[in-house]
């Protein structure tokens, strides 16, 4: 799968000379995450589809904001990755935090969380949807989660990088994620797109 993504990526890179910024009208790659048609809300309460994120390299993690154990580490990793992306590239990148607890993580709540954690610049995107769509996205990412109490979830820890066409470029699992590695992947993806 990874090789396939790389292949697709390099093909895209080759084709990219013709059309530097993929337009929404273009046919989506068959393996693009933008093929999901679910509706999402961002931290500003705007309704959108994943496809509205197209055109930028995406760094995606699924968390819930009231998590006390793993998620704070993941959030810190995301901030670290963000800090390692060159400032000239930053407007070509979105760092996306998707809530697995849409009941609690309302847009207002997400906005508050973003502010508290210093993640309120425009490269930061917080999303929530309903349970079904969240589940579907988790399945695309092969991310496992389960609600184990009214306030707690078990979940796996995965940071994924997508190219601007929504094709998965790489995934890192676990809490010892190598942030330099992810940042490099992001830099390469930005360059290649």
């Amino acid at each position, binding site marked *: 799968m990874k090789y396939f993504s790389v292949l697709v990526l390099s093909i895209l890179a080759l084709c990219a000379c013709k059309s530097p910024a993929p337009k929404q009208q273009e046919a989506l790659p068959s393996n693009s995450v933008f093929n999901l048609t679910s509706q999402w809300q961002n931290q500003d309460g705007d*309704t959108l589809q994943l496809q509205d994120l197209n055109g930028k390299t995406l760094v995606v993690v699924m968390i819930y904001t009231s998590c006390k154990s793993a998620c704070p580490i993941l959030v810190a990793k995301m901030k670290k990755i963000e800090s390692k992306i060159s400032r000239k590239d930053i407007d070509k990148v979105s760092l996306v935090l998707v809530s697995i607890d849409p009941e609690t993580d309302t847009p207002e709540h997400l906005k508050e969380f973003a502010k508290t954690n210093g993640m309120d610049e425009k490269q930061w995107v917080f999303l929530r949807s*309903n349970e079904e769509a969240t589940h579907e996205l988790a399945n695309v990412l092969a991310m496992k989660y389960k609600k184990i109490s009214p306030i707690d979830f078990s979940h796996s820890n995965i940071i994924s990088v997508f190219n601007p066409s929504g094709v998965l470029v790489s995934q890192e699992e676990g809490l010892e994620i190598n942030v330099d590695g992810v940042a490099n992947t992001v830099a390469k993806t930005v360059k290649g797109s």
Partner: protein
Amino acid sequence: MKKVSAVIVLGFLSLVCCNKPQEKSFPVANEHHELKKVNTSVKMVYIPGGAYKPFYGADSAWVTVAPFLLDERPVTNKEFLDFVTANPSWRKSKIKSLFSDSTYLHDWPADLELPPNANPNAPVCYVSWFAAKAFANSVGKRLPTLDEWEFVAMADSVSINARSKPGYSDYIISLYLQKNRQFNPVKLSTPNYWGVYNMFDLIWEWTDDFNSILTTSDSRVGEYDDKGLFCAGSATSATDILNYAAFMRFALRTTLRANYTVANLGFRCAKDSIMK
């Protein structure tokens, strides 16, 4: 599980925090407008639900399964053919690779043609979770949750819960060990207590939340709490270690990804019950 969590959440909200705003869930329902409705004649069985102890979970973690309806048998080749006939985007040549690996409907010689030697009434296999879910939506149903499926799987032909009967797990394992069962037609074996057929003797089945099992695929590690991989790892260990049949099902589920298509993996559909 969806229902169960909802019940727990509601209970929790009403009991503990009445001041919590109620309309927090996401307002826009996702519509499956791209799917054409397909008719199906499969009988659905009413399952009244009840308390049950999941195979994985904390020792005391009883789960209440709400009443629901379950297809009496797995979805067949013929039914899936009807589905892809009505829904071209789910045909073998059209399916998006996001939604399936390369072996989708592996033995089908063409988009609308069953394998020459296939029984139309045998369960459909080589379908991904995405495809199974799309099928369920097209017939106005959903996939059963893991807890719903396992609740029904506790029954033998005469009782609701046969788990503690000697030989219950062994008999299922004997079934599991037979190869190529998936080519047999549905409903030839004895139904269980609820009147549900083919829970064990033909195929593995997708559940909606198959990916909610938070153990690593290395079960020897998963038995122990590992905060490095998962939050709240205490919820991940097996309660009934000698129930090898259930262990095998969980082993399979932890191996799957939603785009996988497998020779002996199919599905059946479920529905919320309107009866109370």
